[in-house]
């Protein structure tokens, strides 16, 4: 008789919990707890030298807001994120077209397109450090031999070119991800529709802007969202490439929080700066997800 009774494994509700539990624990332990700690630290005077907890209210925030570097890095973060996101989406769309195209040797092209994404960030950024070196830069060497410049551009030494370099490296790094996401959207468009447009006499550009892009817009928005979030919270590229310099020209919120909180030892202020990422990120995510839902409902 007992063999006939429904076992624990037959109860969907129970099973669902068991299956979800590892990821719930993982997220709570590695995202939830640190987040709460950051909130707690932001209202304390904890430093690396004096870890005892004393509540200081909004003291850290006033100190942070009074600091010009904070506003500079906030502006840098927005500029860095905005420019990178646009470039990532545009290049992602172009590469996605290459990924779905059918030609000889496409496996090699696909491999090369995905390479930047699979290389560890620190490693690829160090290669870029050499690429953009003030003396030995192969980029400058090429440009010089093409007669485009007279002497080396000091990419990372000038505030403007330093920002440009950070944006370009970030774009280079995240474009493959966007390309794969957009590719999924392009593949999902029924082939009939593209063929109907061909027969209706639409050329390449008309098909692209009137058929392909409108139909894959929700997916493009998702690619933009990923690009934005991963850029907004990223400090690796600017940390490895410029250490936030020259004179904070490429400091972003994440790197400034790190310099303040960990290298500078003022954990409280570091947490306060890092916490500032949260509402902006939240607003961005909500806005984009809303846009996606509106598009899907059409």
């Amino acid at each position, binding site marked *: 008789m007992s063999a006939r009774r429904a076992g624990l494994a037959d109860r969907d509700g129970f099973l669902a919990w068991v299956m979800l539990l590892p990821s719930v624990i993982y997220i709570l332990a590695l995202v939830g707890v640190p987040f709460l700690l950051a909130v707690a630290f932001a209202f304390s005077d904890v430093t690396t030298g004096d870890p005892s907890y004393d509540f200081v209210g909004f003291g850290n925030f006033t100190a942070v807001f009074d600091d010009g570097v904070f506003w500079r890095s906030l502006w840098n973060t927005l500029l860095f994120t905005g420019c990178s996101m646009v470039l990532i989406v545009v290049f992602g769309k172009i590469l996605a077209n290459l990924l779905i195209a059918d030609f000889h040797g496409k496996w090699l092209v696909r491999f090369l397109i995905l390479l930047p994404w699979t290389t560890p960030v620190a490693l690829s950024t160090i290669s870029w450090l050499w690429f953009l070196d003030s003396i030995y830069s192969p980029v400058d060497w090429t440009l010089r031999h093409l007669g485009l410049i007279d002497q080396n551009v000091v990419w990372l030494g000038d505030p403007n070119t330093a920002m440009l370099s950070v944006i370009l490296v970030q774009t280079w790094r995240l474009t493959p991800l966007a390309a794969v996401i957009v590719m999924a959207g392009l593949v999902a468009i029924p082939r009939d*529709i593209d063929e*109907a*447009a*061909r*027969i*209706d*006499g639409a050329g390449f550009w*008309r098909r692209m802007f009137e058929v392909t892009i409108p139909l894959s817009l929700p997916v493009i928005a998702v690619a933009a969202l990923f690009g934005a979030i991963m850029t907004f919270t990223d400090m690796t590229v600017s940390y490895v490439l410029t250490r936030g310099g020259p004179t904070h020209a490429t400091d972003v919120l994440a790197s400034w929080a790190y310099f303040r909180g960990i290298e500078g030892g003022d954990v409280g202020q570091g947490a306060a700066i890092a916490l500032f990422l949260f509402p902006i990120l939240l607003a961005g995510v909500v806005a984009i997800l809303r846009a996606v839902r509106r598009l899907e409902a*059409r």
Partner: protein
Amino acid sequence: MKTVEVRALVKTFDGHLRKRRGKADTVRALDGVDLAAGPGEYLVLLGPSGCGKTTLLRTIAGLERPTEGEVLIDGQVVNGLPPRVRQIAMVFQSYALYPHKTVMDNIVFPLRAEKAPKETRERKARWAAGLLEIEPLLGRKPRQLSGGERQRVALARALVRDPAVFLLDEPLSNLDAKMRATARDELKRFQQQIGTTTIYVTHDQAEAMGLGDRIAVLERGRVRQVGTPVEVYDDPADTFVATFIGSPPMNLVRRGDRLVGFRPEHLLPAESVPQDARITMTLQVERMEYLSGDRHVYGTVTGLGDATRVIARLPATLDTPITPGEPHEFAVPAGRLRFFDADAGTRAPAVPIGDR
């Protein structure tokens, strides 16, 4: 009104997977097709799935490149030309409406692509919408339409640019059975009204018979027969056409090196066939079906050739009593017999069948 012609058309697809293993595996979707549709003609391509009919249509449209042979529209070879300069309009099986555009925008899309002025676009779209009675739907999106309405929108979109040829790829297969009959009737009247050369692909013989001026029967990439519905039905060129067309299909009885064919509706109880020119045979009745008034009699015939299972279709007007399990004398009017070569399957000269 333009002509469309294909000459010695061959289209092969190669299987990628097998090729890598060193076994070249190419599928000949079209294997030397010669076919022509005259000006204003309604030509139906009929065949089982995988016979190459859709590939043929897509090759004419320019969506596929022929491996060999030529496609001619209005006497011009259009082989290398992209679809947009071929002046063709196509209605897809799925209709392929642009889901993000309104019905109006869907219809004017081909006109915008050819950069027609705004007022022309407007006028032609209204005209096409009027012809297909979809004016009230112009502001809607495709997902707000029923299957039949989508089909009309697809037709209107095809119609606005005065195409040289209409290509229709199973446009009725997504409709439910009831809608299909009305839509078929509308399609035919519509084509007669505008008089554009039309090539229509279907696997449904009722559609083919009802719509086509001529029917081209395809099988495995080859044209088996081209002819009017009456020719294709009454004078099939080979056993494939004989058994593919007709429901139930033509009965084939082997007699020596010939196959003797006759339609189920011509196999009738001997007493209802005029005596002067008839071939009689004994039918061992096995089973009967009663379908929309007609009686379908399943049984084995002897006396004509090898004993063979055949089907007889007795019209509702005939009330000869037939009992399953018992033999009954049946007959076919001699003029209704068709002879095929038993090995090749092609039509063969008649052989005398001794009458009693």
